């Protein structure tokens, strides 16, 4: 008996084990797993990332320590970056990570440095205040969701743009959006000078 024969017998036994009996019988293909599960990566990822963003946003409202709040903010921003990826805005996702990683960092630092002493006088809300806040927030949310839900968004859905976003974005910034682009650079310069002056205005 040759080696390959022996191998094929072993394989056959394995296949038979895997397909023995009526259950394993190869019938006509029933509803496939894809149809049965009925969800795709996009939906799974949306619910995962959106859920993370929502939880983190709620955490921002509820936590009382600044550093925790900044951590929640970072979680929400990271989740939103993931959502940008889902929306095929790759460049925006990467920029979100870079800018907000640095931004959150600075917020954490200032949170630590500016509120260490006043943390002793931490504000404790009364239950009534909490309830009022929650009610206002929920009302606002309900209103917004109703407003969004009233409009039928299904019309006019365009084909997914598959053009490379970095290229397109770069071209758009230097053509269509040239004026805002330049304005924003001027704004950044002004902000830099202004912030430096404000922060150093106590200097004698």
């Amino acid at each position, binding site marked *: 008996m040759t080696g390959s024969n022996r191998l094929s017998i072993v394989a056959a036994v394995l296949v038979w084990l895997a397909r023995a009996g009526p259950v394993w019988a190869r019938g006509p293909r029933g509803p496939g797993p894809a149809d049965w599960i009925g969800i795709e990566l996009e939906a799974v990822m949306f619910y995962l990332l959106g859920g993370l963003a929502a939880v983190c946003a709620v955490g921002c409202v509820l936590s009382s320590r600044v550093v925790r709040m900044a951590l929640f903010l970072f979680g929400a921003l990271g989740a939103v970056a993931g959502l940008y990826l889902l929306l095929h805005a790759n460049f925006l996702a990467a920029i979100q990570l870079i800018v907000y990683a640095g931004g959150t960092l600075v917020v954490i630092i200032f949170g630590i440095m500016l509120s*260490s002493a006043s943390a002793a006088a931490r504000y404790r809300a009364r239950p009534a205040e909490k309830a009022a806040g929650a009610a206002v927030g929920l009302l606002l949310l309900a209103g917004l969701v109703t407003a969004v839900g009233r409009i039928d968004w299904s019309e006019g859905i365009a084909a997914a743009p598959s053009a490379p976003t970095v290229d397109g974005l770069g071209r758009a910034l230097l053509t269509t959006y040239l004026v805002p682009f330049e304005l924003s650079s001027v704004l950044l310069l002004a902000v830099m000078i202004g912030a430096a002056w404000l922060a150093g205005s106590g*200097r*004698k």
Partner: protein
Amino acid sequence: MTAMPDAMFTSEPDLLFDAARDGPDGLRTEEMLINMGPQHPSTHGVLRVLLRTDGEMVVEAVPHIGYLHRCAEKIGENLQPYQFIPKTDRMDYLAAMNNNHVFSLAVERLLGVEVPERAAYIRVIMAELNRIASHLVAFGTYGLDMGAFTAVLYAFREREYILDLFEAACGARLTYSYITIGGVTFDLPERFIERLAEFLDYFEPKIDEYDRLLSYNHIFVKRTAGVGVISAEDAIAWGLTGPCLRASGVRWDLRRCLPYEIYDRFEFDIPVGRPGGGGIPRGVVVGDCWNRYFVRMQEMRESVRILRQCIAAIPAGEVRAKVPKNVRLPADEVYFEGENPRGQLGFLVVGDGSPIPWRVKARGPCFCNLSITSHVCRGVLLADVPAIIGSIDIVLGEVDR
């Protein structure tokens, strides 16, 4: 640590806890109290430095000592002098030979004992070898304080060989009790002088290697030049001795200025701190950390010079004067100071006619040198504190005694 004395700080004694004050740019900042030590890598033992910091700036640094206090002086008043010699080993345990030497000399002056010629040479050899070993440790650990990890391994590699020589002479590698009252305990073993010469030939080029590795390293110079400057007046006023004093530009070395033993027979220079330029890196100021470090490097070369002269001139003969074990100390007092690697070690021995001294008092160089820490560590950066403490080169065994 429960109750901190009010007099802990020289300024604002009532502010024991984090205190707000106006910073240099008008922003009200909060100071932080932070304990450097007693368990800290760069306090070289169990020193605790209480820092009051304003961000990275150190507003005030107060050393707290005493974690290693072992009543050495009190023990000295209950033992005969030759019994006390092992206790001197444990004071500055990196320079035990020098401690033995100074205490023996003090007691010999009290008793009026004359040391044989060969014993005097052996003593100088041991003292200078131990000076090199001690400076090697200072060099290596200073590298560690600065974040250069390699220097310490090189330093300990060479120090091992010195310890081998000591081991051959007396059987111990750290606490020797080799130099004793009236001379040394044993004569030198066979081939000791040859091995010593071999070591010196090997060691001298290594100092250039250390200079290339660390002394003239750009980052190292940037970290130490102009940091922790001690003026000559301050150094004298605070009682600094040894390399710390010489780095401030004061040419004071007891081996030359008040020669003891046979130091007047040797030719050697007293290295002092020098300003930048002419081979010295730019930015270096007399009395800064770099000079304190570099004076030690040069002293190693000088010690090698002395050792070579010793090898050339060592005579044969007795190694120990006849001193009876139960000798009665005369009712007199003697204070003797010798030049140790870290500065002047002084012993006050008072006899009252009995074999046990009435009073033994040590003047430790590390203790006095350390006292200037709080004066220098004012308004420096946090990273400069290890640089300054390391450059003062303390051994807590002697600070606390």
